[in-house]
Every structure is written in C-alpha cells, then in structure tokens.
C-alpha cells in the first residue's frame, strides 16, 4: 500500500510537472517566446521634451549648438515626428502612451465640457467625492472614501513590458494622474493638479491700489495687503474644507516682517521662516492646511518678493502637494515621490509648474518667470540625474516640460514680426535656444549612461509656432449663422452665457474643438443626429475657406471632422465634432476658448503668450532622435510606443480593439 502511495504520488507529481511544463510552454509560445526577446540588463531610455520644435532644432543643429543631439542624429537618425490631432500636450501624450487616436483614448483638450450643462472639467482626471456623508449641523463627515480617476482610456504601453517582467520607470509622464499604478516606479506629470484641484492658482498680494483693477486674472487670485507697523499679514487660501457643509476654504496665515532698511522681508509661516530680498524666490515652504485640531493637509509653496517700495507685492505659488506626504496619489509606489524628495529635495508636484498664467496677466515679469523656470528645470535635472543613476535595466521614460512652457510666453522674442513685439523683447531672443542647448546637455548625460545594447530615444509631443493672429471661433460661428446670441453683453461673458440655444447649431469650447448642438447629447440640442455629419462637413469646409483679412491667407488650413478623422469613436459625449487646425501663426482667441462670443472674429494677439502649437498638426511636428536605428521605424507619435516596445521584442501594440 505504501509503495502504491509512493507510485501514485510520483505519478501525480509527474502529471503536475507535465502540466506546469505545458503551461510554461504555452506561456512561452503566447506571451514571451517568439514575441519577446529581452537582453538581460538592456536599457531603453526615452527622454520626452514637451514642445521641442523640429524647425528650431534643425536650425540649432545646423549652427552646431546641439552637439549631443547631432551625434544622436548621426548614429540613429533625426526625423520630424507627426503629432496628434489636435496637437495639444494632453492629447499628444495620451496618443503616445496608448498608441490610439483621441477618439479611442478620450482626451481631446486640456478641458472638456459636460454636454448637459456645458460646465468644463479637467480632461485627464476626475475627483469622485465620497458617496455618502453624515451631516451634523454645519459639519459633514464622509461615510466612504472618495477617489481620483484617470480618464485616459486605452492601455499604457509600459503595461505590455511590465506584463513580461520588464521593469519600467515612468517619471512625469503627462496625462498620467493619478499614476496608472502599472509601472514599477511612476511620478505623475502634466495633469497633476495643485491642492485646489486646478492646473495651478497663484496668489498675488499687493498694496498697489489699482493693481489688476478691471482685469481678468485667469489662473490667479489678487489679494490686497498692507504693511502695518512693519508687518504685512496675509492669508493663503487652500481648497474647501471637506468637513464643512458650507464651502469654506482651509487657510494658512503668514506674516512678512519688513527689515529696517526696507530691502528685505522675513516671511513667517508657522514654524518656517524665509528671508527674501526683493526679486528673490524662496525655497519650498511647507504649509499645513488645518483639517482637524491635530491634523493638517500638508502642502508647500514658494514665495517671490516682487517689490517692497513704493508698493508691497508678494507672489505665492499655487499650493503644491507635499511630496513627502501627498494628499492625493502622485507616485507608484506611493512613497516614490518621498524618495525623490529625500534624495534631491522638495519639488513642484504640480503638473505644469511654470506659472505662465501669472506671466500672461503680468503678475510675473518675463525675468521673474524665467527665474521660476530655472528653478523648475534645476529640480527636474537633479531628479533626472538621481533616476538615471538608479536605473539598471528595462524602460526609463523621463519628461521635461519647461521648454514648452517658456516657449509659450517667450516666443515673440524670436519673432520681430509679432504684433506685440517691442524692442524690450530683443534681450530675450536667445532664451529659448539656450533651453534647447541645456536639454542637449541632458541628452549628453543620458548618452553617457548607455551600454552597447542600450537605446536612447529623444522625442517631443509637438513643435512650436508663433501665435500672431487670434480667431474667435464662436464669433465666426455667429457670423456664419451657426450660433445665435440673445444678449451681446451676456455673450461677452465666459461659458456661452448669452447664447440662444434654440437657434444655435454649433459652438466652440476649448482650444480646437467645435461641437454641434446635437439632439440627445446637448441638453438643448436642435441638430438631429441624422444631419450631424453633413453639418459638420459644411462647417469644416466653410472654415477652410476662411481668409484672415489682415494677411489674406487661410486662417484655418484643415478642419478635421472627427467622425471620419478618428478611427476610435468611444467617447461620443465629450468628443468634439470638428477639430480646428489653424494656420501657422494663428490660434483660437483665448476668449473663444472660454466660451465668449466677442464682437470681432480676428484680432492681433497681444498677450505675452506668443508661441503656440494648437494649430494644424502639419505645421507643428515634434522631433525624434535615436541612438541607433529603431528596429521598427516610426515617424508618428501614435506609432512610436509600438516601435519602443519592438526594441524589447514586444509586438501587437496597441491591441486590436472591438468596436464599442
């Protein structure tokens, strides 16, 4: 009997062994074998540089200012990289991440509109509040936890590597907040909000009586402040207290003590103190937003003392999450952000830290913005050095965003033909080129870390172009009979306030999107679905025929009807019906993007924001460099991830998708 048991056990073990072998063989055949060939210790480094323009890169290469990129171009090639439609960063990076077009990944702009209410919301993430609350007088307490959702659809390309046991480190990838949780290490990038849940709200404390009077300060708050007996006291407003029924902001008080000579202040926030001279940025100041008597929400801010005399002016950055203890998830694993902060110091957790909004309303001067961009770039470079030093094998993606942000507000310094160009701009004409040169040095660091089997890819999501002329698309729709207004004064307010929806067939919200007022989708829709494609084609054709009276050239070189332009149609409620591709040098007017129907269709752009890329994608290609020829060449952002995966022997990305 004993021998029978032994034999039976042996037979069972053999059967089990055979099953295991069969499973392994199947896995090899279907999963790794034949499709995956990973060289042990192989490194693939992808540097993503937002807004690195192909034309400017070519010029700087020709001038010999980018020696490392020139070496890359020689070793593996340099090509323009066709961007997404529309060429906006969240859209473009989502396209890169998923290998899908916007119709399939669902990111069409920085903001989307809710068709029922036309309320706008961040396109890439959504905060879902707790389901049920216990209300006790003025207080409320959540009975379940809230969460933050990533709205990008599709599969991130690094998941295909992780599924095969290849480690991936994805740092500051845009459109990846909250972090997907599928990489070995992740830090979320563009799309990560400040603590107010926005792309960044600054505060400017000023004693100047007329500062920003009657002025739109989109992206910021102007607070009056006075120096009384040598001290200026202010309050920084945080998000609404989650435990009060009536929205009440959590606040942090500070005091700015002015020195006897009137040249410096000492800022005191809780136990933290910083001495600032005029024109100086502070280091990070940890702040605690009071939540409960013994509990605070940790954040961090930077101060800039703009002036002391004749007026006191103090800029406070948006409240960033404290990377040591972020209130929302910003990294994978959760303590990776703290690891980076411990190693290289605190950093901007906000996805777009360069405060171009403050620059655009002149709350920051050009020099102040450049100093801030220097801070963000230094933080980013230090972190890159740390991440690179700790990267052993697999895939490393690392993102730099400051080139894009500085290009937006400094482009006209290279563009004497810009309508707002002045002699004062000339002093900044090399600023953007200098950033390219600095990025070239970063590329050099990455090249030095490569082994013989390794690969470095340098890419950008889109290029750049001057923005000289602005088109108010809503005004264009009005003038062409597609949009009606009931009240011109109300129509001049954001949010399409004065629009007569009973006579409106199309409207514009955001940078490139035009929406039909569609029955069954919009709450006051009048366009029958059967007429939608014909109407969209009609509007698109009319747009392409529009000439800018100032230049007598087409203002819109391509208007994409998304029903035919996008392969995916998974997000019919939020997808625009037309994506407007403006001519090089032309962009949507900021007013139009906010839903304002202005008096004029065309105007000169006089904002500091003088460079842009939300145009016809053909005008603003990105760049692609590689340290050796790619096994599967790519010249499109949408197919680049598949080419990177092919370096690991992974094919079939993105997966075939069934029609929803």
């Amino acid at each position, binding site marked *: 009997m004993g021998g029978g048991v032994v034999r039976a056990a042996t037979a069972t073990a053999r059967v089990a062994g055979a099953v295991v072998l069969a499973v392994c063989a199947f896995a090899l055949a279907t999963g790794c074998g034949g499709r995956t060939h990973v060289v042990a210790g192989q490194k693939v480094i992808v540097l993503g540089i937002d807004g690195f323009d192909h034309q400017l890169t070519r010029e700087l290469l020709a001038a010999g200012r980018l020696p490392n990129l020139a070496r890359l171009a020689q070793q593996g090639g340099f090509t323009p990289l066709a961007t997404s439609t529309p060429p906006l960063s969240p859209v473009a990076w989502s396209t890169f991440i998923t290998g899908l077009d916007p119709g399939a990944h669902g990111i069409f702009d920085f903001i989307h509109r809710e068709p029922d209410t036309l309320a706008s919301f961040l396109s890439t993430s959504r905060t879902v509040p707790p389901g049920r609350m216990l209300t006790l007088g003025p207080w409320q307490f959540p009975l379940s936890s809230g969460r933050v959702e990533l709205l990008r659809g599709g599969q991130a390309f690094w998941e295909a590597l992780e599924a095969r046991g290849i480690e991936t480190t994805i740092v500051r990838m845009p459109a990846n907040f909250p972090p997907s949780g599928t990489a070995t290490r992740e830090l979320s990038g563009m799309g990560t909000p400040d603590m107010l849940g926005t792309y960044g709200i600054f505060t400017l404390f000023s004693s100047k009586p007329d500062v920003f009077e009657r002025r739109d300060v989109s992206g910021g708050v102007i607070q009056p402040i006075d120096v009384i007996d040598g001290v200026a006291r202010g309050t920084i407003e945080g998000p609404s207290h989650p435990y009060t029924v009536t929205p009440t902001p959590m606040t942090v008080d500070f005091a700015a003590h002015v020195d006897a000579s009137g040249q410096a202040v000492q800022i005191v926030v809780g136990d933290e103190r910083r*001495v600032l001279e005029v024109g100086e940025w502070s280091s990070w100041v940890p702040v605690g937003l009071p939540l409960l008597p013994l509990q605070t929400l940790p954040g961090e801010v930077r101060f800039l003392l703009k002036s002391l005399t004749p007026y006191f002016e103090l800029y406070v950055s948006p409240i960033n999450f404290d990377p040591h203890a972020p209130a929302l998830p910003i990294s994978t694993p959760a303590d990776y952000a703290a690891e980076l902060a411990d190693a290289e110091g605190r950093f901007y957790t906000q996805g777009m830290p360069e405060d171009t909004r403050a620059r655009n309303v002149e709350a920051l001067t050009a020099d102040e913005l450049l100093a801030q961009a220097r801070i963000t770039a230094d933080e980013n470079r230090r972190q890159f050095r740390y991440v690179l030093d700790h990267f052993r094998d697999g895939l490393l993606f690392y993102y730099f965003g400051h080139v894009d942000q500085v290009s937006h507000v400094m482009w006209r310094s290279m563009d004497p033909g810009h309508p707002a160009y002045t002699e004062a701009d000339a002093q900044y004409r090399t600023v953007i080129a200098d950033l390219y040169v600095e990025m070239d040095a970063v590329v050099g660091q990455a090249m030095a870390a490569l082994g013989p089997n390794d690969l470095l890819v340098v890419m950008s999501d889109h290029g750049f172009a001057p923005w000289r002329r602005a088109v108010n698309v809503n005004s264009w729709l009005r003038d062409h009979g597609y949009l009606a207004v009931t009240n011109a004064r109300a129509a001049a307010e954001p949010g399409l306030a004065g629009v007569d929806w009973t006579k409106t067939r199309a409207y514009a919200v955001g940078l490139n999107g035009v929406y039909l007022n569609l029955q069954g989708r919009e709450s006051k829709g009048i366009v029958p679905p059967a007429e939608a494609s014909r109407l969209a084609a009609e509007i698109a054709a009319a747009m392409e025929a529009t000439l800018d009276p100032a230049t007598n050239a087409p203002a819109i070189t391509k208007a994409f009807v998304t029903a035919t332009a996008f392969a995916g149609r998974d997000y019919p409620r939020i997808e625009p019906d037309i994506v407007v591709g403006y001519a090089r040098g032309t962009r949507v007017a900021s007013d139009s993007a906010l839903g304002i129907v202005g008096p004029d269709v065309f105007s000169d752009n006089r904002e500091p924001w003088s460079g842009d890329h939300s145009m016809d994608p053909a005008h603003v290609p990105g760049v692609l460099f590689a340290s050796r020829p790619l096994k599967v060449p790519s010249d499109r952002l949408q197919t680049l991830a598949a080419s990177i995966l092919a370096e690991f022997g992974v094919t079939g990305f993105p997966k075939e998708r069934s029609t929803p």
Partner: protein
Amino acid sequence: MTLVNALLVRLADAVLAPLAGLPPLAVVAGCALGSALAVLAVMRFTSNQEALGAVKRRIHAALLEMRLYNDNLPALLRAQGEVLRHNLSYVGLSLVPLVITAVPLTLAIAQLQAWYGYTGITPGAAVVVTAVVDGRTGAGLPQLEGAGVEVAGPPRYFPTLGEVTWRIVPRQPGPTTLRLVTAGGTVIDKQLHIAAGDEVARRSPVREQPSFIGQLLYPSEPPLDAATGVTAIRLPYPERLLPVAGQAVHWLWVYLALTFAFVLLLRKPLGVVI
C-alpha cells in the same frame, strides 16, 4: 548645568568621534544596545525584582480571570479593578528605576542629537544665520565674519521680530567659527560645521542665553552672556534622517525602537524582570 554639559561634551566626543566614520545606523544601534543594557542594569539593581515579578503575575491572573468569567459581570468588574490596582503597583515599583534612567538617557539623547541629528551645511549653498537681539540696536547692528565663510550682503534687521540675519555662503568644508561682533565690540562665537558630504560631526543649531531647557537641548556650546544683548544665534542645519528599510527615519525613533527591542530581547537572558 554648563559645567555638566562641558564634561558630557568631552565624554561624548571621546566616545563618538572615533565612530564618526561608521554608518550612523550602526552607531545608533550600538548606542541603543548600550542604553538597553544600562536600563536593564538599573532595573536589576534599583527595583524590587521579586515584588515586580509578583505584581506581574497578579496582573496576568486578573487578565485570565477576565477571560474565564467574561459572562459574570461582578467577577469581570472585580478583575478589572485588580488589573488597575496591580498596574498602579507596577508603576510604583518601576518609578525609582524610571527616574534613575530618565536623567542619563535624556542627557545621552541630547549628545546623540548633536552628533546624529543634523547634516552639515553644504559648501556653496547660501544659508541664513539669525541673531536674536534684545532691541538695543541703536548703536548699530552686529557684524558677522568667519573663516571659510563668505558673508553675502549686508545684515538685515527685522525690528518686529527682534532679529538680525546674514546670508552666508560656506566655502571650505570642516569646522569653523562664526564671529559676531556687537556694536559695543563684544565678540560672540558660534560654531559652524560645513560638510561636503554626509559627514557625521557635532553640530549645534542654536546657541542661546542660559536656560535649563536650552542647555538641556543644546549642550554643545556654553550659553551666551546676557550682557551682550544677543539672546540667541541660530543656524539652519538640515535634519539628518537615517535610511531604514527604504524609509527615511529620524534617528531618535530608530534609537528608541531599538532600545525597546533590545530590552525585551535581553531581559530573560539577563534574568531581569521589567
């Protein structure tokens, strides 16, 4: 207290300076082991070990009674009363060794904090030195100088805070002395340790006028003379954190946790009832 501190500083430096090249975690662990042995020795020789053992057995008995008679309310309440009474006895019996160990441990922690609580100020990085003054600045602001240190810009006086600040840029790694000269010509020294790397050394972020708490917390330098008009000098040494299992942890938590763990581990082998 000044004399005690001076002696303790010499003693601590004699012990810790030769260990400065070792990983801080190893030294903190060694100190925790030494502290645990000291705590056990004090417990062994200053407490009534038999009485402690007996009261612990009674507590266990009362806990067992609570478990056995949890459906008998009067018995349960009586047992809880017993637990409380014996716990008070336990605290009473532990009081003497607790007081005896608290004093040297506090002094030892202050010395360890000076050695392992801070990292050095990095050469080339501007930092702000603050002198708290008592308001008598009419004769002029104090001046600051120091070998291997560049004083960048003029002093800033903040009357509403009663503080004078200097921005300094350390240039040479190593220990140096900042010299603060008051308007009356009085010279006040403040030690500064500049470190290029993660060097372990004695550092004191504050030197202030005499106070019991101040001298307890910052024993490294003698207190300031009240007649100078300077009540404190502060340096912004960054806090040192020790890497423990991938986490950065303040050395004190590591020390306390390890001391506690060593006490628990060693009490039976050493035959000590705690």
